[in-house]
C-alpha cells in the first residue's frame, strides 16, 4: 500500500546488506563445495580399496617361471572358489612396477627390481570374509603368502571424512549465524535511523505487522540479491580453483567433478539466505516494537 513509507534502500546500512549476505553465501558455497569435493574424492578412494584385498605372493626362491605361474594360478583358482570373492586377477611385475613408480621416482620402471607378485581380489558388496582362515588356507598352496585388506587406511580415510563433514557443518552454521546477526544489526540500524518515522506511523495507528512487513520485504529482496551475487562469485571461484588445481597439481591432487545434486544444493543457498534474512528482520522488528507502548 505504502511502498515508500520508509526509504530503507537509501540507507548506507541497508545497501550494505547484500554485501554481507553475499559474502556469507560465498563462504558457505565454498565450504560446501570443498566438502563435496573431499567427500567425492574420499568416496572414490574408499570404494577403490574397500571391496578389495591384495594378496602378496613372495618369490618362491629358485623355482622355474612356469612352476611359479602355475602356483599363482592355483591361488587365483582357490580364491575364486571362495564365497564372497567376485574376482581375482594377477598383477604382473610390470604392473607392480608402474604402481610403485610415483614412490620410487620415474626411473624405477627401468630399474631391474625383483618384485613380489600381487593378486588383486575383488569382493562382493558386504561380503564378510574371514581373513585369517583364508590366509591359512591359501598358505597351503603358496607358503609365505600374505593378505592385506587395507583396514588401517580405510579407518584413517573415514576419520578424515568425518572431520571434513564436521568442519563444513561448523562453517555453514557459523556463516548462517553471522548472516542472521548481520540482518539483526542492519534491521536495528534501520529502526535506529527511522526511529521517528516508525514511532510516528505507529502513533497514527499502524499495526506492528505493517511496520515489520516494510523491513521484511526489504531484507528478503536485498538478501536474495546478495545471495545470488555471492553464489555467482563462489561458482567463479570454484571453477577457477578447479582449473588452477588441475593444471598445477595434476596427478598430485585428485580431480573430482561435482554432480547435479551438489549444484542444486549450492543453488539453494540464495533462497535460504533470503529466507533467513526475512525471518530475522521480521523477528527483530516485532521484538523491538513490542518493547514500546
Amino acid at each position, binding site marked *: 500500500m505504502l511502498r*515508500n513509507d520508509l526509504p530503507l534502500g*537509501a540507507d548506507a546500512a541497508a545497501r550494505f546488506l547484500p554485501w554481507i549476505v553475499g559474502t556469507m553465501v560465498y563462504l558457505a558455497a565454498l565450504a560446501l563445495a570443498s566438502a563435496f569435493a573431499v567427500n567425492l574424492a574420499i568416496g572414490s578412494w574408499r570404494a577403490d580399496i574397500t571391496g578389495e584385498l591384495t594378496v602378496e605372493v613372495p618369490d618362491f626362491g629358485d623355482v622355474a617361471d612356469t612352476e611359479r605361474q602355475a602356483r599363482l594360478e592355483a591361488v587365483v583358482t582357490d580364491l575364486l572358489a571362495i564365497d564372497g570373492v567376485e574376482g581375482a586377477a594377477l598383477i604382473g611385475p610390470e604392473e607392480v612396477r608402474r604402481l610403485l613408480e610415483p614412490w620410487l621416482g620415474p626411473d624405477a620402471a627401468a630399474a631391474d627390481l625383483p618384485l613380489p607378485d600381487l593378486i588383486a581380489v575383488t569382493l562382493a558388496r558386504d561380503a564378510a570374509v574371514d581373513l585369517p582362515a583364508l590366509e591359512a588356507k591359501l598358505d597351503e598352496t603358496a607358503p609365505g603368502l600374505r593378505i592385506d585388506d587395507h583396514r588401517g587406511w580405510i579407518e584413517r580415510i573415514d576419520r578424515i571424512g568425518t572431520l571434513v563433514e564436521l568442519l563444513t557443518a561448523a562453517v555453514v552454521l557459523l556463516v548462517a549465524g553471522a548472516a542472521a546477526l548481520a540482518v539483526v544489526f542492519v534491521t536495528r540500524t534501520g529502526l535506529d535511523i527511522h526511529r521517528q518515522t516508525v514511532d510516528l*506511523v505507529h*502513533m497514527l*495507528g499502524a499495526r506492528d505487522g505493517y511496520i515489520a512487513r516494510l523491513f521484511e520485504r526489504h531484507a528478503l529482496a536485498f538478501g536474495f540479491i546478495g545471495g545470488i551475487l555471492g553464489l555467482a562469485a563462489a561458482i567463479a571461484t570454484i571453477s577457477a580453483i578447479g582449473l588452477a588445481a588441475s593444471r598445477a597439481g595434476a596427478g598430485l591432487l585428485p580431480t573430482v567433478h561435482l554432480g547435479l545434486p551438489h549444484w542444486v544444493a549450492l543453488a539453494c543457498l540464495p533462497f535460504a539466505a533470503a529466507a533467513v534474512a526475512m525471518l530475522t528482520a521480521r523477528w527483530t522488528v516485532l521484538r523491538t516494537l*513490542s518493547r514500546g*507502548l
Partner: protein
Amino acid sequence: MVLLEDVSVRYGTGPEVLHDISFALAPGSFHFLVGPSGAGKSTLLKLLHLAVRPSRGRLNLFGRDVNALARADLPAMRRRIGVVFQEFRLIPHLSAFDNVALPLRLAGAKGGEIRQHVTELLQWVGLGDQIETRPARLSGGQQQRVAIARAVIARPSLLIADEPTGNVDDRIAMRLMYLFEELNKLGTTVLIATHNEALVNRFGHRQLRLDGGRLLTRPRPAEVG
C-alpha cells in the same frame, strides 16, 4: 468521550509530572489547555493520544478503560484520534501530500478520494503550490500547517493539538482556528494546548489550566460526558 479520574503520570522512574488530574471532555466539546512552560500540557496530551500511560488513576477513552487495553487494541483506537505534535513530526522523505494522506491510507481509503481530500485541505491551509514538496524544503510555519492537515484529514473523533500556531503569523493562526472550529461543528471533540493568550481570549472556549502538573480549572460537572 474522555474521562480522567485522579490520573498521575511519571516518565520512567522520574518524579510525577502530572498529579491527580480529573476532568471530562464531553463529545463535541472544544477546550483550550493553558499553563506556563513545563506545566505538563504536552504530557497531558500524550496521555490522551496513548503515547504514555497513567502511572496511577483511571483514563477512559471512547468508553473504554485504557489501562485494560491490550497492545493489539491500540492501533484501531489511535486511528480515531488526530494529533498535532508540538514538534510537527512530519515524515522527512514523504511529500506534503503523502504526509497528509498517511492517515487516510492507514484507514484504507481509496486513491481518488484521497487525492481530492488531501489537495483540497492543503489548499485551504495555504499550501496549494507546495503539495509535492518535502518537509525539509518547507518553512517552519508551512511544516506546522502540514502537520495540522494530517491531524484533521481523517475526521478524527478526538483532535489534540499541541501549540499548533507557534510558528505561523496571526492571519494564518486565525485561519487554522476556523479549521478547528469547522471540524468541531462536525462533531469532533477538540483540545488545544497553547501559549497564545490572544487566541484563547478571542475564541471564547472553555479553558483547562495546568500549573506545576496540577489542574487549576476544571469543567463544571454538568459538562461531563
